[in-house]
């Protein structure tokens, strides 16, 4: 387990700039989630840290020491790939044991068996241990690929959307297991996900990438409550933040061009008239789709609300976020 710091990392593929001057410090024992739309540079960041690609400029330090010249193996990391790359010639058991069989580790066979069994249990794949890796479903392959990383105690776990092909229940279970491993081992994680809940519940820190630039880094709470820009604000929160012209509810602060309203920023019962278009009952939450003049707003309400489509209500903003012409907070 170690602190990992990135200093001015820049990487281009041909003329395509994948990462531009990214600096961040992943504290020892942190669980850092990287957010960003497709192509933002998340996988590139992991590959650079793992040593699969060389940065064009910048430095990577693990536990204070530069590792840029080291091979992937020397860096002592464990990576879970976006496309699970299991060894087709080995069984699930041998896939899981693979990282422990390296001659330099020299683990006794009994230890390997114990560790593989333990990890298989955690990932709910113990019943598939003797299958060939090619005879698994997508979700099972993904769990084996997580397991392959978890059998070791590397200085950092790099995980690229590791739970993306699992069903909701399994995903929730494994979220808890990963969090437990994080807490028990004090392991350091850098974790890529598109999943809001994963980001909010697992992360100690969130980094938001926009077209290869790190635009904000902070605790999930900070990112959610105090985003530096409309772009960052749109990355977290379900339903997404509503972005309207600044004067939609009347006079706006100087310089503000957009008003950002999260569901909790919409106070129902006073202010401007709005029409309920649709009531979307999702079980744990109920969404109201509103129109207010030409604007559409999505907000949350009491799960057992009596409101129905066509209802007339009034709304007003409550401590909203304001953004300027370039999308930054004013």
């Amino acid at each position, binding site marked *: 387990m170690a602190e990992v710091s990135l200093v001015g990392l820049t990487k281009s593929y041909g003329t395509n700039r994948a990462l531009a001057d990214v600096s961040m410090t992943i504290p020892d024992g942190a669980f850092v989630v990287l957010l960003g739309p497709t192509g933002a540079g998340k996988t590139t960041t992991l590959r650079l840290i*793992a040593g699969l690609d060389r940065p064009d400029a910048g430095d990577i330090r693990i536990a204070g020491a530069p590792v840029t010249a080291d091979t992937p193996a020397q860096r002592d990391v464990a*990576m879970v*790939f976006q496309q699970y790359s299991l060894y087709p*010639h080995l069984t699930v058991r041998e896939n899981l044991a*693979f990282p422990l069989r390296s001659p330099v580790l020299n683990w006794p066979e009994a230890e390997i068996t114990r560790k593989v069994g333990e990890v298989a249990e955690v990932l709910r794949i113990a019943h598939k241990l003797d299958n060939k890796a090619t005879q698994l479903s997508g979700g099972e392959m993904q769990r084996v*690929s997580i397991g392959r990383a978890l059998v070791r105690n590397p200085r950092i776990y790099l995980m690229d959307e590791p739970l993306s092909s699992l069903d909701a229940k399994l995903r929730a279970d494994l979220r808890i297991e990963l969090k437990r491993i994080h807490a028990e081992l004090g392991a350091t994680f850098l974790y890529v996900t598109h999943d809001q809940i994963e980001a909010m519940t697992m992360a100690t820190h969130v980094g938001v990438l926009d077209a290869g630039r790190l635009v904000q880094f902070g605790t999930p709470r900070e990112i959610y409550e105090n985003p530096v820009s409309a772009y960052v604000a749109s990355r977290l929160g379900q339903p997404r933040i509503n972005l309207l012209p600044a004067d939609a509810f009347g006079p706006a602060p100087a310089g503000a061009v957009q008003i950002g309203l999260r569901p909790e920023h919409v106070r129902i019962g006073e202010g401007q008239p709005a029409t309920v278009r649709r009531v979307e009952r999702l079980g744990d939450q109920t969404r109201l789709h509103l129109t207010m003049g030409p604007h559409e707003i999505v907000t949350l309400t009491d799960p057992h609300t009596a409101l129905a489509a066509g209802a007339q209500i009034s709304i007003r903003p409550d401590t909203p976020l304001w953004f300027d012409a370039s999308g930054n907070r004013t």
Partner: protein
Amino acid sequence: MFDPLTAEEWRAVALSLRVSFWATAVSLPLGILVAYALARWRFWGREVLNGLVHLPLILPPVVTGYLLLVTFGRRGSVGAYLDQWFGIVFAFRWTGAALAAAIMAFPLMVRAIRLAIEAVDPRLEQAASTLGAGRVWVFATVTLPLILPGILAGAILAFAKAMGEFGATITFVSNIPGQTQTLPSAIYAALQVPGGETQALRLVLVSITVAMAALLVSEWVSRKVAKRISGA
């Protein structure tokens, strides 16, 4: 016409098998290395290496044989040195036939192995390296098992090619019965004497039998290996 082979003919068959076996066995590790380098490494001179490897395929065999004679002959630049310091002599020995066969078969061997390496998903090797495996270990535990069918195919192809090698061999080590007379050289020699056609035909049948056997064994082995690897 189907008399058992004479002692001399048997010697030619045995020599051919021995030459082909050693030509294949000794060049195989180098073949794997060169195939890996050509498939995976981007280095200066890669195209030159590729050209050199393929040269014996394109040159007239007699030219290759002559070049071998000039280089590895007793007075050749390398040959003299090897003789003086290590006592290794190629010229007019069966070892020379093996060297000629190995060089002639090398392009086929490298090509088959290279195709197998290029078919391996590099992400598998990358995954292994990000799980703490060093280069050599990745090769031994991931790449090698996956390219085994290609290696076998390359080796058997090389063996078959070595069995049939004639031009470079006869130019380099001549056609000395019992020493450098391989199966093809023996067939050629038989055809040179009046009335030697029956002898030639017998040797041709042996030649065909060996080739067919090699083919069948290779098919069988690669099917076994492919099955084991894909897990089907």
